[in-house]
């Protein structure tokens, strides 16, 4: 665990600029505007604000997870980082998730404090970040390329955002209040995440991602 922390410190230090710029946008531009909007919002506006927050946060999560996966699975270092490595990929993914939760938490709290009865959307948002993280790692390992995985997930993200997939199958559904999400939607999300983690574990054990292409 200590090694994961050390590795995470290195990772954040090496790619700090890629983290700071989007976070600057989130806290300096997006959040103040949303807080202004929320001052006296009606339901339609609340849905719009949460929709926007979800879209941006999910995109940011996709980017942060890509940075994390790239750090561990970069093509130049893949072979050497697989020889005798004690760092397991799902564990690394969870540590990246914690980092992004840490980065998003103040934003989530601000939104929560202002949103009153729509506060339930904040945990839903964090849950979707988790699903995004798991799917990206799975896609990156499946394609044996962090960039390929991120591109695939970006494609899926835009399909979801433009309602190109049915809402129940759209794992990254946005613009809905928590009470509007059916049980079926949660079941599908959890199922997709569980299957992806199992597949990642399996690929790791069979050295699937270690092959050079």
């Amino acid at each position, binding site marked *: 665990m200590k*090694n994961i922390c050390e*590795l995470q410190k*290195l990772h954040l230090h090496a790619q700090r600029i890629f983290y700071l710029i989007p976070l600057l946008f989130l806290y300096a531009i997006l959040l103040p505007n949303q807080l202004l909007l929320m001052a006296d919002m009606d339901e339609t506006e609340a849905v719009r604000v949460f929709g926007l927050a979800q879209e941006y946060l999910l995109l940011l999560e996709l980017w942060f997870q890509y940075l994390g996966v790239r750090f561990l699975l970069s093509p*130049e270092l893949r*072979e*050497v980082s697989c020889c*005798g490595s004690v760092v*397991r990929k799902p564990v690394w993914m969870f540590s990246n998730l914690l980092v992004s939760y840490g980065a998003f938490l103040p934003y989530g709290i601000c939104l929560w404090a202002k949103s009153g009865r729509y506060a339930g959307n904040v945990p839903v948002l964090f849950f979707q970040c988790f699903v995004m993280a798991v799917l990206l790692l799975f896609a990156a390992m499946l394609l044996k390329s962090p960039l390929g995985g991120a591109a695939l997930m970006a494609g899926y993200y835009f399909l979801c955002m433009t309602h190109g997939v049915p809402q129940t199958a759209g794992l990254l559904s946005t613009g809905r209040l928590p009470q509007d999400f059916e049980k079926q939607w949660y079941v599908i999300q959890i199922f997709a995440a569980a299957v992806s983690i199992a597949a990642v574990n399996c690929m790791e054990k069979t050295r699937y991602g270690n092959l050079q292409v």
Partner: protein
Amino acid sequence: MVIEIKELTKKYGRKEVLRGISLQLETDTYGLAGPNGAGKTTLLRLLANVQKPSRGEIFFDEESMRSGRSNGSACLNCFVNRNRFAGKTVEVGYLPQKFGCFPELTVYEQMKYFACLKGVEPRKQNGEILRLLEAVHLEEKAETKCRKLSGGMVRRLGIAQALFGTPRLLLLDEPTVGLDPEERNHFNEIIRRLEGRLTIVLSTHLIEDVRNLCGRLIVMDSGRVLMAGELEQITEAARGRVYEVTKAELEKLEGPFLVRNSVRKSGTELFRVILLGENREMENHRPCEAEIEDGYLALLKGKEAMNEKYL
């Protein structure tokens, strides 16, 4: 440490890259030579546990790398996602053919990255990194960004990372490719300092590296081991078959042979030829002293000569 490779086979789809290789490696420096596609890199990857074999097993001190079972006894511990089995850690250092760094990291940070991956305790990392950087003469570059390193320095950094945790098996895949003579000397010096302490397997196209560094050579071709032995044994394959002949003599030469190179002696161009096939010798000529390159080529091309009339 004794590493025993038994009937190791690796397939990519239908293509068989390694075909039932059996070898025994002891504490020594082994050269692994062969043409492109011989299976050298695949063999190293299997030894480094970066890939899994399709068939066959590798035993480290009689314990299987694949299943964790002792040679011939029941399986107790499964080999999991690291080079760890039967409660022990097999320290394997591996420098792959394509070794790169994160350009954004400094040399020290890059080493810290590897230390974290290999599970070196954080409190021991600093000392270990400095020791290894000193061993590969990169201590002065510790704060330099990796993007500013020369190709040779990157290779040395690769060796340093492979030496984390004092490995007992060091696998180097074409470590001297693209190095200038000075860098090559640095590399040779590093390897010589390690000799006798661990098993080193060095894959290379350059027989010069083998002569300089290795006690034994494994010659591979088409996924098979043609011969494995001490350098003298490899040289033996060409003994009595190497001749220096003039161009006129060369044109008259019959049977399968191989021209290794040509030299100019006293104004005459002489061709160094290796006669291939069964019981070959030249009349009215004294054979030259065979070298390791001659033995290597005789082994590689001798097999082909059985099928082809002339080379």
